[in-house]
């Protein structure tokens, strides 16, 4: 008797709730109806999925409204809209990665990584296409150039950015100087990259004569773009260091600059390091400022202070814009996509490095 009661008893708490299968029961009719609707216009998979999603959301909202009430229906509706927005946002990202992998992987050979374009002419490409042999020539010089330019840009921006941020947080007390720095950092964040390139080109043109183009000029242009990012992220990180730690240090008779270098910065270092890494990732793909400052080269240049220098973005640009062989563009196309893949991998590695650095430097916890 008791058993039967327990079975028949319906919990007050689960009344007026849709069972789980109800949503599937909405999904299938929605999919079928969507297929029918899509066929009317001309069937394709994307159209079908979009129609299914719309019909499903409407259907789910309707039955929830009927069974569970308007509050639950609203909740369900908004939840699906949020999921939808997330998927929409993911589509371009996945699509880019997919395309670059698909087109770039065939060209990503050790030959591509370790040779430059030196001596690779249109004739070479024509022969490659005619004979069906592997594509010759690679992006070694561009990888070397990108690494050098990014490294020098980092070496310039990090000390300047770090010290500006330290001034803003630790010394500037809302005075005119700190307000001016904050203002100009904000302005610099919005500078178009080509303007930064022109600035660096003009600056070096004035000092060393016109058309001075070296990797170093490009590095200066990139640091104009990097510094505001470094200042901003470092400033945020320094601000969240609790004041109590500074006071604890002062109370031990420690000087201000030692407090900053030994207490404040170590506490914030993980955030600072990942901020710097993300700033590098931000500028590593810049094309325009490098074109006007470092020019372009087809051979390896190890010296940032003299001679034109290639970089991955300009390499991609030139391979697409002016293929090595105007009649047979396939080898150039393949090289451009492979270079794009390397650039994306580079940015991904930097992001990964930022996470590892953040974890490695994070204040230790645990017993």
């Amino acid at each position, binding site marked *: 008797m008791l058993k039967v009661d327990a079975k028949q008893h319906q919990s007050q708490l689960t009344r007026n709730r849709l069972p789980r299968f109800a949503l599937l029961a909405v999904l299938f009719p929605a999919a079928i109806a969507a297929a029918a609707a899509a066929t009317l216009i001309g069937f394709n998979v994307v159209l079908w999925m979009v129609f299914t999603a719309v019909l499903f959301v409407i259907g789910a909202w309707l039955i929830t409204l009927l069974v569970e009430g308007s509050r639950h229906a609203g909740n369900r509706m908004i939840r699906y809209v949020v999921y939808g927005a997330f998927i929409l946002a993911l589509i371009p990202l996945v699509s880019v990665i997919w395309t670059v992998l698909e087109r770039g992987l065939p060209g990503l050979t050790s030959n591509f990584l370790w040779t430059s374009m030196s001596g690779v002419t249109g004739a070479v490409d024509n022969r490659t296409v005619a004979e069906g042999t592997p594509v010759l020539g690679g992006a070694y010089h561009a990888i070397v150039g990108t690494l050098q330019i990014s490294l020098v840009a980092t070496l310039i921006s990090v000390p300047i950015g770090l010290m500006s941020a330290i001034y803003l947080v630790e010394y500037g007390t809302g005075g005119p100087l700190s307000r001016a720095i904050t203002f100009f950092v904000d302005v610099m964040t919005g500078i178009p990259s080509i303007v930064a390139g022109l600035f660096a080109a003009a600056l070096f043109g004035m000092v060393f004569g016109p058309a001075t183009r070296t990797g170093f000029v490009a590095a200066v242009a990139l640091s104009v773009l990097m510094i505001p990012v470094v200042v901003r992220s470092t400033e945020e990180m320094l601000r969240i260091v*609790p004041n109590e730690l500074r006071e604890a240090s002062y109370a031990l*008779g420690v000087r201000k600059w030692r407090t900053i270098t030994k207490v404040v910065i170590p506490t914030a270092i993980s955030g600072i390091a990942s901020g710097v890494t993300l700033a590098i990732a931000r500028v590593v793909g810049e094309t325009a400022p490098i074109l006007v400052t470092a020019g372009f080269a087809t051979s390896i240049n190890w010296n940032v202070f003299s001679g034109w220098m290639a970089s991955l973005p300009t390499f991609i640009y030139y391979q697409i814009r002016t293929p090595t062989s105007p009649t047979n563009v396939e080898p150039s196309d393949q090289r451009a996509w492979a270079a794009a893949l390397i650039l994306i991998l580079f940015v991904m590695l930097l992001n990964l490095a930022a996470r590892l650095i953040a974890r490695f430097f994070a*204040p230790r916890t*645990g017993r």
Partner: protein
Amino acid sequence: MSKRISVKDLNVFYGDFKAVEDVTLDIAPRSVTAFIGPSGCGKSTFLRTLNRMHEVIPGARVEGDVLLDGDNLYGPGVDPVTVRSRIGMVFQRANPFPTMSIRDNVLAGVKLNNKRISSSDADDLVERSLRGANLWKEVKDRLQKPGSGLSGGQQQRLCIARAIAVEPEVILMDEPCSALDPISTMAIEDLIAELEKDYTVVIVTHNMQQAARVSERTAFFNIAGAGEPGRLIEYSDTTDIFNNPREKSTEDYVSGRFG
């Protein structure tokens, strides 16, 4: 090692606002002195002026003299860093350095100032300071673990160990127990009784039983109203303050009739 503090006609300002007015008092060496009073009456502000920690707050300044065995803390050419290395401070919330181990936290005063110290001297100093803070037995097997992994009461004792490791003459405590449970509070109070043998201890507290338990002398601060400066109302032996106060407002405060 322990020294006398004499305060003469001290005024403290935050910008134009006068926070503490006209305080004159004498703190004897090897004693515990408690500051009590309602919130906002300036007792913490006053405590900070005893080792120039108020200067960390923008706009804070002082008029008057604070003498440490006759040497004026506010005399010309006095470096606040020197003052703070001789007058240590423990804060309301335990604040061990999160990037450092327990051992490094104790050695922070030495290491942050880049003083050379041999490893065996450092071991001695760590053990001595942690014993002095009644923490040695609990942490001696995990000195390399982070200080932030300790319980709140242990962290506060770690901060006291860190403060006594720089061998100050005076230790200021700004409500050291207000974030702790009764058992940790008792541990700290026992510790204060120990510290009294070697140091001049000044403690700000909201807990009147605590003031009565740990201190020989008590100073009562009060404000006339919002926007008015805090004043020292009465300063005498703790037993007198609690049993036989001279001022009406002291009696009202310690008997719980206001504030």
